[in-house]
């Protein structure tokens, strides 16, 4: 059951303040991810403070890096159920977890960050892994 929208509003705003496009419907997901070209990061947001509380600031830090995805989108697991389920169909080789992050190039997942790779780590440490993945997979595109 979704949390009270007022409770999760700050978590949504933390993403949109970074300029990340929030996808709240399956149609919005299809528009953003269907026939996707270039480089993209999709952040599966979560209310869980254990992991998402560090993943959001980690992403903010990583986006300060010189190499980064051309497109940024987010869905909110446990909140926007339809949109999250649809987004996960685009990275169906990976089991669902939240928070998590998928890096895509031309519609193909090139890197996936699972919840277990976020838990218990500092934003700086998570961001370091993310920027390394940006360099590895997106370096030539920027």
């Amino acid at each position, binding site marked *: 059951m979704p949390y009270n929208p007022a409770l999760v509003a700050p978590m949504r705003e933390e993403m949109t303040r970074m300029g990340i496009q929030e996808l709240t419907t399956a149609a919005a997901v299809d528009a953003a991810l269907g026939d996707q070209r270039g480089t993209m990061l999709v952040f599966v947001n979560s209310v869980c403070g*254990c992991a*998402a509380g560090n993943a959001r*600031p980690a992403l903010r830090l990583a986006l300060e890096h010189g190499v980064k995805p051309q497109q940024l989108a987010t869905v909110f697991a446990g909140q926007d159920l339809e949109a999250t389920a649809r987004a996960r169909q685009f990275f169906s080789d990976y089991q669902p977890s939240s928070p998590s992050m998928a890096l895509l190039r031309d519609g193909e997942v090139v890197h996936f960050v*699972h919840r277990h790779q976020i838990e218990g780590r500092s934003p700086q440490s998570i961001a370091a892994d993310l920027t390394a993945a940006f360099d590895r997979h997106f370096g030539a595109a920027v």
Partner: protein
Amino acid sequence: MSHVFHPGHHALHGITVVLETHGAETFLGRFDSEDEGGVHLLDVGVHEQGGGVSKEEYIRRSAKFGIRVDRKHLVVPKDAVAQIMPLGELGG
């Protein structure tokens, strides 16, 4: 600013762990709590020794592709627990 929702819980609360038992089963799942009944895991993948895939390969694949959930909630009796390690510390 980040938002923490789980104050006052077990140190492993919310962490995805590998729970090895003294028997043939290994469980991967999110540590929830521990009480008299044992260790409570959520969204649990189950590996049984002697199946097609070795325990090591099962853990490696789960670390890379995520955990396929076999059980939503599982309680492992304390005396069955041999070791609990965060999955993220095992090369995930």
